[in-house]
Every structure is written in C-alpha cells, then in structure tokens.
C-alpha cells in the first residue's frame, strides 16, 4: 500500500540553527527524488499555523521537523499527542495544537511525529552551525531508514 507521507519543516533560516527543520525538508526531498520514491509531500514555513490542520488531514503519516534547544544529544523523534494546549499565538502553534485542530475540524487523526534536531546558535545569520549540521545528518540517516518501512511508524503511533 502506498502511504501518504508529509514531511514539514519549520523555523527561520535567517536565524542560524533555527533553520534546521527547513534544511531537513530540503535534503530529505532531494533524497526522495533521487530514489524515485512515491507518496511523499513536503512543505516548509516559518512556523506552524492553523491551515496546517488541513494540510495534514488526508495524510497517513506526518513528520514535523523543528530545531530544538532541549537537552538532547543530537535528535529525537517523538509522537505528537493531540494537545489541549490552547495557548495558540500566531507565532507558535505547537504540533499538538495542529493535530488537535485537525481532529476537531476534520475528524482526522494522522500518525504524527515531531523530529527535534538539536541546534546551538540563533543569531540573525544565514547558515547552520557545524555541530547542528552533524545532528541534521544523523537525523536524516535515521528517518531515511525508518521511512523504508513507514507502516511500522504508523502502527507504533496507534499503540501510542
């Protein structure tokens, strides 16, 4: 079965490592095209926003990619719960918020994950830091491997 998979990176590439999510999408799309894989859609933006609830509604699997300041080594992939967090601001709709809005508006609940990629510098400059690029490469390898069998991620989400 051909799954509909949506990879969505967000952040501001004008602020160094904040562009990790956008860079992930760019590189992942290159790889998908090289491999001739089908069923993928990509998007990239400054931040998540309400219309993304519609964008994910018809997908089987969604991976949001974002830069992270969390205490993680390089990257992690976590399932996204339909958050009841209502502190929506136009600059910062959370992935959980989008999943919840999608469920409430369209009664759709795609398997959704957030890829957190560790970043370090956030100044007004283009370009990723060397350390974050290494994290990006590791994340790319891992997700490529995982998406060779997307069904596993989709089923895992149901358990979650």
């Amino acid at each position: 079965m051909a799954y509909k998979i949506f990879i969505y990176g967000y952040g501001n590439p004008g602020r160094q490592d904040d562009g990790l999510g956008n860079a992930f999408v760019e590189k992942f799309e290159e790889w998908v095209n090289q491999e001739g894989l089908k069923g993928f859609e990509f998007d990239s933006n400054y931040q998540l926003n309400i219309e993304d609830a519609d964008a994910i509604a018809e997908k089987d699997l969604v991976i949001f990619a974002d830069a992270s300041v969390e205490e993680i080594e390089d990257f992690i992939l976590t399932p996204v719960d339909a958050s009841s967090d209502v502190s929506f601001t136009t600059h910062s709709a959370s992935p959980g918020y989008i999943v919840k809005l999608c469920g409430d508006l369209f009664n759709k609940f795609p398997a959704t994950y957030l890829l957190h990629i560790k970043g370090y510098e956030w100044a007004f400059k283009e370009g990723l830091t060397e350390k974050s690029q290494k994290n990006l490469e590791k994340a790319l390898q891992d997700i490529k491997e995982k998406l060779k069998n997307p069904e596993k991620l989709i089923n895992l989400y149901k358990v979650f």
Partner: protein
Amino acid sequence: MEQKITIEPVTRVEGHGKVTIHIDDEGNISQSRLHIVEFRGFERFIQGRPYWEAPVLVQRLCGICPVSHHLAAAKALDVIVGAGTGDGLTPTGEKMRRLMHYGQTLQSHVLHFFHLVSPDLLFGIDADPVIRNIIGVAKKHPDLAVQGVMMRKFGQEIIKATAGKKIHGTGAIPGGINKHLTIEERDSFLNGPDPLNIDKMISWSQDAVNFLKGYQKENKEFIDNFAAFPSNHLSLVRKDGALDLYHGVIRAVDSEGNKILHDVESQDYLKYIGEEVKNWSYMKFPYMLEFGKNKGWYRVGPLARLNTCDFIPTPLAQKEFEEFKAYTNGKPNNMSMHYHWARLIEVLHSAEMMKELLNDPDLLEGELVTKGTKQDEGIGMLEAPRGTLFHHYKINEHDQVVMANLIVSTTNNNEPMNVAVNHAAKQFMTAQRKITEGMMNAVEVAIRAYDPCLSCATHALGRMPLEVVMVDGQNNVIDRKRK
C-alpha cells in the same frame, strides 16, 4: 494611596508586553500603560547590507506579515532604482504585487478575526479560558473554524504563487516583480474545487461580515462602548479618495471627520510625522507634527482606513461601507470593537480585488521590471493589515544601506492601544484589588481589537506573553498575574 496593576503576558497577541495599572486610594484607575519591553534594533541590523537584499531581509521582522514588509521595502527601493514613487511600475509588476498584498491582507485578517478574536465574541470575554479559544470554536462552531482555516489557506496559496515561496519570498524586487502568474495558477484560484476558489472566498467573506453585524446587533452595548474614544485617523488613500491598501497619499481626519492631513505624498512623510520616545516603552509614539505630541496621535488600520477613505472601489464592499458609514451618520467611527467590522469589510474588498486581478491578462504576460536613474533615498508605504507601514532607506555610493527607518503599524497604534487599555481597565478594574482572568482578558481584548502582534513593533521575535501588575501610589505591587 495609589495602587498599580500590571498584566503580562497577553495571550493571542504577539511580542512581549506588560500592562501596569495604577489605582488610587479611592479605587479609581489613575493611569494605565502598555509597556513594550523587548528591543531588537532591526533598523541597525540592515545597515551595511546591499540595498537589493532589503525586501528579503526585512521579512525576518515578522513571520506573520512578512509580505507587508517585503512589499514596503520593495516600494522604497523602486524609488531608489528610479522606478518612480508608485506610478512607475509596469502593469504586470504592479498587479502581481497587488495580488500578493490582497492575498496577505485576506489571510492575515482572517487569522486575526476567526482564530484570535472570535473566541471572545462567541464565548464572552470573561468565559472560562478552557473553552474561550479556537479549539472551543472548532467544537461549538466548526463551520466558522473551517472557514477560517480554508480562507487562510487560500491567501497563503496566493502569496506562494506571487512571492515564489512561503519563506523569504523573492517575488517583489526593486522596480517590479520577478515572475508572472501561470495559467494553471490563475485557473486554480478562479475555478478550483470548493472551497478553494475566489467565488467561495467572496461568499464566505460576505458571511463573515453578516456574522459580525448580527453579533453587533445582539451585543450592541459591548461592541459600541468597549474602549470607545475619539481620536484622529490616518491612512493612505488613493488620489481620488478610494480605499487603497497598496498605494496612495497620506490622509488624516479628526474625530469629527475634518481633514487635517490633506492627501500628502508618502515621500514627504517626515514633514508631517514625528515619533516621540517615552522612557517606559521601547515602542515609539508617532504623532502628526502640526498638532503636537498630545493632540497629534492617531489610529491606523481597518477602522482608520474606513474613516479616511471616501469610498471602496469594489461593489460588495462598497455596499457594506455605506452601511458602516451610516451607522455613525457619516462621521468617523471611534469604537474600538468596530475595528473588527471594518476588518471584515476589508476581507470582502480583498477577495473582490483578487477576483478582478485574477481575471486581468497582465498577470500572465508583460514586462516585469522598470528601471530608471538611481537615487540615494527612497520611501515605501502601504496599508499593512494592521495599518500604515513606513519603510525609509538611504544608500551610499557602494549600494549599501546606510539608514533605515521603519514605522510599523503597531507603532502607529501605540497611543490608541494605550488609551484602549486604560478604558478597559477603568471598566473592569475600578475598585478591585485582585486581578481575575476576566480582567486580564478584557485588557487583551482591547489590544487585540487593534493588533494581535506586537513583535515587529518591538523588533522582538517570538510569543507575546503579557504581565499585568497592580500597583499602589507608593509603587507597591499589590497583585501580579502572568499567562
């Protein structure tokens, strides 16, 4: 003994703000201030960069209205590359930019109203915040919430088709635009499957105006009186007095409708507009020089625009405009909550304008760029969703930006927002010693009528939390709430 209340953070408003409420011994509000407490200095950041980078760089000011900054910067650079002061672009260049701008206005207004404001209207400003949000709207009024999502999506797709991409769009360049619309894009916007076509957008826009009018009739006391106060109003208007969100001359009227700034050219704005700095806020306070700091401040944005213009050049919005004007017997409307009524009329106007433009063959072919004799200074102005936006640049002989002055919409509305906050405080906090959630939201409702976004005004990225602090006459904090 005077007391002071401070409110921070403001939810569903971007940037970072703090509201301080001073209360005297009798429990009366003696003073309220909206403080903007972050500073980014964007105007310095852009100095030294090649001028042609400005339309892309300035989009970093704000992820919410990057198109407004993109276009205002491009308009300033039109002057610098010798493409005139608003009338020198090719038909394709100007019309593509206008399409981009109306797409931006529609999606921004829709986000503002449906997702940030409608929870207050549908559930009441003192309703439980657990339901007073867009998730609550989605559950109780799913049709409205879906309309908001799909209208925003339509506007975003227009932006993508005209600016080239969602992030750091490159469509507008000094002297014009860098692409045409394709036939496929045009046909999709005109005749795409429901709801993503322009006729549906117009129909939904009419529904939205009718919804607000119906709400206003049932809640007249609140809508007409909450944070209502007289002021001057300023905006661009087309030279014939029409509403024009993309280009025009600067007009201001006073609270009675007398013209006090008589259709002056945008390149001359410094002769008429000054900015006051106050030691308690990073956001400046613009005013009309002729009338001084105390009497020269003004409102901008949808309400101001409908107060300054003589008519709207699209038929459905004009019909709504006539009703809007009749409500105040042709005088300026000074009711803060009527910003939302004006905002939705502009949504309808934007949708109508987009349909007109999408049917124009100039979008599909024709020269893209105009060039002329280079100048070392340029000013670009437009009516951004939240109000008049000024971009002013000077360059040196190496084509580097040496001066940038930006007066953003939120800054123009600084004094009115302070006055609105004071009105809300007087209505909801007089004789109180504890800050309730309802009180905090009342203050936020006043700010949100003008603007859900303070971030570009303060030049700070990120969320806009708000703190409210209640202080007595000796500056003792008697209550403080954050959210």
